[in-house]
């Protein structure tokens, strides 16, 4: 996959890292700005303290010997390397002595601390400029006469200073160059720029690798899903084993796929079975009609053929209804109404309904049930499930070794209500067969000869699932026990 910039920007990973990078950079800038301003303020305070000390010393010199001593001390100090700024001017602002050649106009006009850093020029620094410009100026130019250091040369320094008015109206300025804090500020700002640059670069790199890794995983997931959409339902999404979000997502999707595959398989099986179990009787139906039409028959023959046709189509309709009902129940969106159902009454209803059939078949039908046992459910459905099971039990108990017997027992076991229908016929000895017996249309070989659609148990199972219950087939030695288990609470 080509990794063009717009393509990268389309990935969630890239967008997220860009956002994080931006936020992080913003925080870093704010932090650095705060640190710089804090240290600058500290440095300024320190400078002011130094100046104050200096002024105190000068004040003592002035007290000792008046102006001459002050001037001498100032001149001496001015010549020291790295000296502070000193300037003494007369009341008009004419510079008399000190190491300042020129400074911004107006600086010495107001007493006290200068409010902002100002630019100045020391003696010796402006020589070249002056030579170049004709050097007509006086060696002691008047402060603020237009010989502005900012206009004459770019080499001005910034400083802060304390301006004092001496008792004789002369002006004294003591200042300190701001070179140091400014260098500090420059260092900080360079460091900041560098840091931001590196952060940006790092971000892009991380973004590239992380984003690409995420892209790759997502791409493999979309590739896999495209394959699956293409019809290969056995395909699964890759799981790396890292246990991360991608793995969890893939695992969930795989579970979903497995369920879909299972439903699909069920659907396929059903359509196969429908093809078999509905087409066979349809074919028979058609053949019978054709055969009747083909020969010469008496009215009675036609009548019989038609009656057979009706019986056959009734059976087809029954099968069809059962299939529909099972799929609706299994789809789970069925809106069948539920309410309180007295299982004991349902048992006695169904047993009473089947009692004559059982008697005719020579099967003893026994019941053990409490007076009343009410659950929440659908009476019709439970009645239908139980009657299907009893119907089966009667049919399959007739091959019993002893007297055929079917027992219907309703009882509460723990937090379940069990409704068991047990016969003493041959049962289903094979475990696998027993498990398969509730599948749709499965009619175990031995029962193929018996009438029925093969849907009775499947329908009962679907009905039990609808009631949040279970349908279990257990060996009864001899015979089979079909157990409907209802949860005591929470049935819809």
């Amino acid at each position, binding site marked *: 996959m080509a990794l063009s910039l717009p393509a990268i920007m389309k990935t969630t990973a890239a967008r997220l890292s860009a956002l994080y990078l931006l936020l992080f950079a913003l925080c870093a800038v704010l932090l650095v700005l705060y640190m710089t301003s804090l240290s600058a303020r500290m440095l300024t305070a320190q400078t002011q303290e130094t100046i104050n000390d200096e002024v105190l010393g000068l004040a003592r010199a002035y007290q000792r010997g008046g102006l001459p001593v002050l001037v001498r001390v100032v001149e001496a100090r001015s010549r020291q390397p790295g000296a502070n700024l000193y300037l003494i001017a007369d009341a008009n602002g004419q510079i008399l002595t000190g190491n300042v050649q020129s400074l911004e106009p107006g600086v010495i006009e107001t007493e006290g601390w200068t409010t902002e850093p100002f630019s100045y020029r020391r003696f010796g620094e402006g020589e070249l400029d002056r030579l170049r410009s004709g050097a007509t100026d006086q060696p002691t130019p008047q402060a603020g006469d237009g010989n502005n250091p900012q206009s004459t040369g770019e080499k001005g320094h910034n400083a802060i200073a304390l301006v004092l008015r001496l008792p004789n109206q002369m002006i004294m300025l003591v200042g300190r160059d701001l070179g140091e804090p400014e260098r500090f500020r420059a260092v900080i700002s360079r460091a900041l720029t560098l840091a931001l640059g590196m952060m940006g670069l790092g971000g892009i790199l991380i973004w590239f690798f992380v984003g690409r890794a995420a892209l790759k995983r997502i791409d493999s997931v979309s590739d896999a899903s495209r394959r699956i959409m293409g019809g290969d339902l056995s395909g699964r999404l890759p799981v790396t084993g890292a246990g991360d979000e991608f793995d969890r997502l893939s695992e969930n999707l795989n579970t979903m796929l497995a369920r879909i595959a299972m439903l699909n398989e069920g659907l396929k099986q059903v359509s196969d079975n429908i093809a078999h179990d509905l087409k066979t009787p349809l074919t028979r139906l058609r053949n019978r009609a054709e055969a009747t039409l083909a020969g010469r028959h008496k009215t009675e023959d036609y009548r019989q053929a*038609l*009656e057979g046709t*009706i*019986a056959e*189509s*009734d059976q087809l*309709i*029954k099968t*069809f*209804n059962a299939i*529909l*009902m099972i799929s*609706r129940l299994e789809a789970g969106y*069925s*809106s*069948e*109404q539920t309410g309180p159902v007295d299982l004991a009454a349902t048992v006695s*209803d169904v047993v*009473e*309904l*089947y009692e*004559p*059939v059982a008697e*005719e078949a020579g099967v003893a039908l026994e019941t053990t049930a409490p007076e009343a046992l009410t659950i929440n459910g*659908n009476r*019709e*459905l439970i*009645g*239908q499930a139980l*009657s*299907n099971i009893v*119907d089966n039990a*009667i*049919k399959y108990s007739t091959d019993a070794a002893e007297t055929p017997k079917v027992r219907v027992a309703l009882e509460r076991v723990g937090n379940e209500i069990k409704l068991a229908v047990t016969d003493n016929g041959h049962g289903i000895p094979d475990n696998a067969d027993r498990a398969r017996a509730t599948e749709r249309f499965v009619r175990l070989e031995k029962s193929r000869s018996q009438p*029925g*659609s093969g849907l*009775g148990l499947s329908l009962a199972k679907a009905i039990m699932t609808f009631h949040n219950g279970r349908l279990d087939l257990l060996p009864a030695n001899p015979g089979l026990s079909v157990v409907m288990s209802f949860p005591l609470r929470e049935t819809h």
Partner: protein
Amino acid sequence: MTAPQPSSEIAYNGSMKILVMEDDREAADYLQKAFAEAGHTAHVAGDGETGFALADAGDYDVMVVDRLMPRRDGLSVIAALRSRGNTTPVLILSALGEVDDRVTGLRAGGDDYLTKPYAFSELLARVEVLNRRASARESETVYRVGDLELDRLSHSVKRAGREITLQPREFRLLEYLMRHAGQVVTRTMLLENVWDYHFDPQTNVIDVHVSRLRGKIEKGFDKPILHTIRGAGYMLKGG
């Protein structure tokens, strides 16, 4: 769908005027023809609006209403007719067969509910039972069919003056058959009305119950009274 039974076997409570609301032309034509063969007159409406207009204007004994129809669905037609005071018995035909579909249908004012595909014999039997002129027996306390007599209050059954002992369910079975004497009663109708279940039992359990009842009310008497109508159900008929 099955052909109607030859009329020779079924004694009708006279001819009925039936309104069939069914949008499937072929099914409607078939019903019209089949009802005619059974001795009834059927009018067909192909959609809900026409059906409503016909039902509102005409005096029908029974209406057969398809639930899904163009222009107006069956349930709303029934509800509208009921709100206008029309009490004609209605049988709802529907492809929807869930228990609560039936409940919704009956709640909307239907009197019976039959799921497609259905056997015509079943439809005919139900329509004839619905006929209001035939259901006047509801209020009678003693049913008499031929020499058979059932007292609903004392729960006693006599034939030719001889007391017959019946189980409670057999009594209800006979009571239903006698209420609809002279009409075909299908197995599902019996399961619905005597046992109050609406499913198809796999085995014909009803037949065994009926044959037991038959044994009790016919054994020792000359004439059969409980007849089996092939392909349809049963009919209690005296004389």
